[in-house]
């Protein structure tokens, strides 16, 4: 028999996501007197951008990434403080379900109920993975995806790798793979030279990024870099053995490789937002709307717009930071995390100052979205027998027969598999212009016992400021 109830953790501020935004938010809030619980699905803080940095810090005393080095040591010190410890970090923890305005259920190695006064959602971004013939072959991964796998120990030494997709991330991925001994045989960026020029020409406003870009271009100078180019298909038996490519001028070719690291930009992990939307307003909209507009209604109910620098949501006490404000990179994420934390303690002056800094990044966010927008050819690489929904092996042809995401979902099971539409949702948006269905709890597959034990949440009182932060820490 399992325990009848989950342990409850209390805090003033729950920060979901320990990437740059979450770490900055936690430290800022703690400095202002908040008792903070910082959670992340990974066992260490750092998120995706700083993956592996915490391990380096613990083992060698330093992070190799300069920006991580400015923040993670401070977090580590805060976690280790004996007297007046204000931040607790809980790793391998995913928020899967929300009961009411002040309690969520978290799953992970040890499930728990978290009672909070305010929450900052800093769940970051994931890669946009578009379907194309052969994309389900083992060895085909995301671009950022392969980079983080390597950071956590996967070896690519001596392997022939093609890096493809779109975005500044591709250069970073190619450089980092090369540094571990991989043979990167080509980078295929679908954006045109004109777009890339337009993007780089506004980087002067962000000197740190300029240096970073130059550095990456220098490191990758020997790797053939193809612009206005994309991978049309991957081939192989049980793993990928080669790719076909094409460019905007019609030139095409083939390359042998044992890995294809292909990602078409980043998109926010917005499922968490839906969990925190006010269910009353969502349901009101729901009763008059068809299912396809529910997600729109949910998003509108919780968040003003994509490129806004506004960390506030429609829900009091619920804030967003980082890539949830729109893809903008680590530096912007850090400022937004600080800003969100300032708002939680009502530090108006600090908030205004940070708002100004944040707005400086708006141009970058827009440029990123605009110059790396996907061309039609790349949206429509998949053919009718290409798998669209990976989890349920639903093809593009089978999905295409339906009018919208929900109808396709009910009829084919597209989006009903383990990833709950996270991968195929973007793909359907790009291919058909469909808005995906709204998110349901649990946000990630979770042992049934977590849901069995979470009935205790209704009995939990909202935490008071006299309660200590409880739970694990590093």
């Amino acid at each position: 028999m399992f325990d009848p109830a989950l342990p409850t953790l209390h805090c003033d501020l729950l920060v979901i996501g320990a990437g740059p935004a979450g770490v900055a938010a936690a430290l800022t809030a703690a400095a202002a007197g908040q008792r903070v619980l910082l959670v992340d699905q990974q066992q260490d803080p750092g998120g995706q951008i700083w993956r592996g940095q915490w391990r380096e810090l613990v083992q060698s005393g330093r992070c190799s990434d300069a920006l991580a080095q400015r923040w993670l040591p401070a977090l580590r010190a805060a976690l280790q403080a004996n007297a007046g410890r204000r931040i607790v970090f809980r790793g391998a923890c995913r928020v899967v379900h929300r009961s009411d305005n002040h309690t969520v259920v978290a799953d992970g190695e040890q499930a728990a109920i978290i009672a909070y006064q305010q929450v900052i959602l800093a769940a970051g971004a994931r890669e946009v993975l578009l379907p194309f013939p052969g994309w389900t072959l083992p060895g085909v991964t995301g671009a950022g995806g392969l980079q983080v796998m390597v950071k956590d120990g996967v070896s690519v030494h001596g392997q022939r790798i093609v890096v493809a997709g779109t975005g500044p991330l591709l250069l970073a991925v190619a450089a980092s793979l090369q540094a571990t001994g991989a043979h990167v045989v080509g980078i295929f960026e679908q954006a045109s030279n004109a777009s890339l020029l337009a993007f780089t020409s506004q980087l002067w406003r962000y000197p740190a990024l300029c240096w970073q870009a130059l550095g990456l271009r220098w490191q990758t100078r020997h790797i053939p870099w193809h612009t206005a180019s994309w991978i049309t298909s991957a081939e192989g038996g049980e793993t990928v053995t080669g790719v076909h490519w094409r460019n905007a001028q019609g030139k095409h070719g083939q390359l042998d490789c044992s890995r294809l690291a292909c990602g078409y930009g980043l998109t926010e992990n917005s499922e968490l937002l839906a969990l925190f939307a006010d269910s009353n307003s969502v349901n009101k909209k729901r009763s008059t709307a068809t299912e396809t507009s529910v997600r729109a209604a949910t998003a509108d109910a919780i968040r003003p717009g994509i490129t806004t620098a506004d960390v506030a949501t429609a829900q009091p006490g619920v804030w967003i930071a980082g890539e949830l404000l729109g893809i903008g990179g680590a530096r912007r994420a850090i400022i937004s995390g600080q800003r969100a934390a300032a708002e939680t303690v009502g530090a108006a002056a600090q908030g205004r100052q940070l708002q100004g800094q944040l707005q400086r990044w708006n141009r970058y966010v827009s440029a990123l979205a605009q110059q790396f927008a996907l061309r039609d050819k790349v949206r429509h690489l998949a053919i009718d027998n290409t798998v669209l929904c990976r989890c349920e092996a639903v093809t593009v042809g089978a999905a295409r027969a339906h009018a919208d995401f929900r109808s396709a979902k009910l009829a084919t099971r597209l989006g009903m598999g383990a990833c709950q539409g996270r991968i195929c949702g973007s793909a359907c948006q790009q291919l058909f212009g469909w808005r995906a269905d709204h998110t349901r709890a649990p946000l990630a597959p979770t042992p049934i016992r977590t849901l069995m034990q979470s009935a205790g949440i209704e009995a939990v009182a909202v935490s008071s400021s006299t309660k200590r932060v409880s739970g694990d820490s590093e």
Partner: protein
Amino acid sequence: MNADVIIVGAGIIGCALAEQLAGQGMKVCVLDRAGIGQQTSASGMGHLVALGDHPAVLALALRSLKLWRERQCKLPDNVEYVSCGTLWLASNATDVLQAQENAELFTAAGVRNEWLDAAALRRTEATLVTDLSGGLRVPDDAVIYPPNAVLHFAENAMACGARFEIGVEAVSVAGGEVRLADGGRRRAPYIVVAAGCATSRLLPELKLLPRKGHLLITTAQVPRIHHQLIELGYHQSAQGQDPVSVAFNVQPRRTGQLLIGSSRQFDDESADLVPAVLSRMLQRGQRFLPELPRWPALRAWTGLRPCTPDNTPYIGNLARDRSLWVAAGHEGLGITTATGTAELLAQQICGNTPLLDGAAMSPNRSLAA
């Protein structure tokens, strides 16, 4: 098109009826504000089960099951008809008595059934807890995937000339006329309201309450279960009018996932999960499947069953307005009885002698408030 019959509601009942009537040559028009099979039909378990509180409902269910079996080979593969049968689980002496009563009823009605003692039960379903008294096996019960069954009925209806108007909301029905939310009207000599929980908006005198239920589906990384498993206590939950009740029910799907239910509550029409009820339902599940807590939950959702005060659907002609017909209020038996309901109502509309006695399901029957 000048319709002979307008059906309000394109759920499984509306679409099955459309197939019947269009197949008999009537000009059918189906209206739905959301889509085909989008509401209750999309949220339920899809069990085809010999069950019914009132003898008339049981008869309807049995006739329906026969009709489902007859069309089994014509169903497309994506309807996923699986004759896994039902195992009714007995935990105690009361359950065993209930099982015996049911067995007699089934045998008398020609429904195959067999009693499995505790040892046989353990051999048949290894995941079950070992302290059960036994189980009543009904091998001809089945499981389908309802959204595709509804589409199948709709496609058959369309192939016979039925027209579906989606995104069209009916706001009133009277005297052979349906008034729409956008101000439009549709006229036909026969109007059938098959709108599930929304029926009482159009026919307010028919008492219908939405009865919310929870379901949870696992990932495929779970052990195999061969039958649909239902505890005999399900009868009390379904037939009673308790504000909140749970009863164990699990269904194997063709994907290898397990669909776990069931719960019933009256007080809540929102789509939100209610943690306390979900938890209670799962705890009830654990009583029968000890390893349940370890299995990965993929998704949980709710649905609303249209429930009448006497747990018997409304099927038939309204005495106060002979242009109006109704087929709604099936509680948890909508999928099971869709075929029989369509046949019965079509017989009534076309003036043929109905096979079943529809008196108990008449919308004109008097009901205790």
